[in-house]
């Protein structure tokens, strides 16, 4: 299939359709409103469902209702909207329903700004809503990778019966790049008859299904949460994904960076290499589960003097990097958090500065 030039937000919408994600509920918010605009025209063409909800809170429950009756369903939003959806995400996770949430991050807290950011790392990977739960969090670094992650996210959500979040910064949504939609990433929906409230007649069954999140008995709630934990442990075994860069040589600094920021770091690493300074990088493609072992192994290399987490935030992922490195190397943070993307020169200066 030939490549087409598409804006990230539109490509995300198209990728969902190509993966069989034909049910979309959303509320407009900059910088991802183009997804809803695109799908408002495209969904009717493919016999899908498009609905603009009255709020992000309502949208998250439209997703819940649709997911609970067995539909492949997704939404897209941006940071303040994801805060509002976090209530619903907590319920959907508790109810073990598959669904996909795309967060095209903008600056925060509060209204923040509309420029790119990575300041929702904690919200995405540590919770966001109430209760003991995790999301599988995928972090694309290009429009093509966003397409592929969106296409994979539906089957991953079904594999774990857990919401998946695509965490992209504003640039992923706004920039145009050539993309293709790999056919092989479309996976047929799983059979949901065992749990979905799809109607007893639909399942040809006398057994009714119940989707709930209330467990008044403490032992039952404990057991349910342990069941959820088992899924997250399985994600840690099966869904670690990262991309190493320039880790073959005797690098003196290890960068950890994801999304658009990692592309800037890659350029900085290439320039530094030309100057004779070796820097390696690990780019987590999944943020939960986090590639702890890979980072520890890379940091442990004898030539490595320091680890640098480069993020478009005040330093959020750096806490996971510190956790991974377990004190074996000094861990530093560098970044900007107002919507400006650090330049390769900024990153190069920071690396030189680190090495004194």
């Amino acid at each position, binding site marked *: 299939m030939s490549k087409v030039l598409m804006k990230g937000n539109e490509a995300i919408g198209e990728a969902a359709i190509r993966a069989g994600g034909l049910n979309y509920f959303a509320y407009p918010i900059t910088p991802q409103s183009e997804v809803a605009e695109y799908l408002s025209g495209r969904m009717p063409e493919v016999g899908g469902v498009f609905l603009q909800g009255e709020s992000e809170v309502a949208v998250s429950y439209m997703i819940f209702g649709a997911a609970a009756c067995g539909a492949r369903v997704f939404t897209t939003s941006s940071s303040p909207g994801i805060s509002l959806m976090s209530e619903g995400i907590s319920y959907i996770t508790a109810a073990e329903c598959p669904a996909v949430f795309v967060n095209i991050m903008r600056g925060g807290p509060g209204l923040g700004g509309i420029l790119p950011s990575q300041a929702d790392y904690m919200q995405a990977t540590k919770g966001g809503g109430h209760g003991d739960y995790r999301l599988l969090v995928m972090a694309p670094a290009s429009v093509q990778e966003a397409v592929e992650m969106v296409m994979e996210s539906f089957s991953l959500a079904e594999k774990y019966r857990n919401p998946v979040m695509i965490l992209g910064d504003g640039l992923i949504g706004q920039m145009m790049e050539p993309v293709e939609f790999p056919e092989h990433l479309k996976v047929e929906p799983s059979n949901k008859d065992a749990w979905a*409230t*799809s109607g007893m007649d639909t399942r040809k069954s006398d057994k009714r299904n*119940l989707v709930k999140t209330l467990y008044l008995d403490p032992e039952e709630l404990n057991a349910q949460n342990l069941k959820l934990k088992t899924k997250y442990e399985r994600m840690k075994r099966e869904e670690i994904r990262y991309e190493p860069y320039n880790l073959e040589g005797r690098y003196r600094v290890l960068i950890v960076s994801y999304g658009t920021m990692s592309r800037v770091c890659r350029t900085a690493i290439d320039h530094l290499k030309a100057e004779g300074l070796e820097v390696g990088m690990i780019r987590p493609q999944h943020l939960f589960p986090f590639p702890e072992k890979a980072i520890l192994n890379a940091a442990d290399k004898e030539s490595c003097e320091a680890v640098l987490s480069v993020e478009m935030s005040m330093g959020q992922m750096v806490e996971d990097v510190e956790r991974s490195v377990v004190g074996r190397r000094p861990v530093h943070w560098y970044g900007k958090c107002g919507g400006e993307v650090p330049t390769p020169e900024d990153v190069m200066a920071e690396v030189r500065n680190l090495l004194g």
Partner: protein
Amino acid sequence: MGKTFCRPEALADTVTHYCPGCTHGVAHRLVAEVIDELGIRGRTVGIAPVGCAVLMYNYFTFDFQEAAHGRAPAMATGIKRVRPDLIVFTYQGDGDLASIGMGEIVHAANRGEKFTTIFINNAVYGMTGGQMAPTTMPGQRTTTTPMGRKPEEVGMPVRISELLASLATPGYISRQTLISPKYINRAKKAIKKAFTYQMENRCFSLVELVSTCPTNWGMTPVDALSWVEEEMLPYYHLGDFKTPEDN
């Protein structure tokens, strides 16, 4: 002589947790009878609220989802949009629907979502222990209005049926009560109408049921029935406020 009265198939054979004199049991039974009579049990999905009826899924024999507080209409919207062939109803109290879920119910009704809402108005938060609801009567004592509801501080009770009937989108909006057999029969007719409109894919439908809460009102069940008649019905008028034929 054969059996002339039995438990509806849609109703589970179990003991409920409701207090003596509470009308939830009557409302549940009416919904179950209607579902049986319309033959839709196998394609119905109920949505339980947060409130006293949070465990209502234990009392019915078909698919159920449990909502967050006030969000049932958004969940029903999600289901009906992706599965228009299913029959979907929400069952919500006044704290759930008229307070925290006001946004969801108004917009679902205004979009003309093809589901049915059974709205239990007993003028008080039940499960959380008798606090003021948007529907609490002026002067009514609750655990958060110990001196009685003061309209000059918190406004007058919200009349949900009138409010929803004011929307321009076609719908079926009816208010009934459950305080005597005469009213119970009328309530059942309204509930059946509401589900029938849904089956015909006509419109959004809501039946408000003016109900009792003897426990939180601090009354005997019999006094609670009189209180509905004397205090609530003069303010919450009964009848159909809107039918799709009006448009």
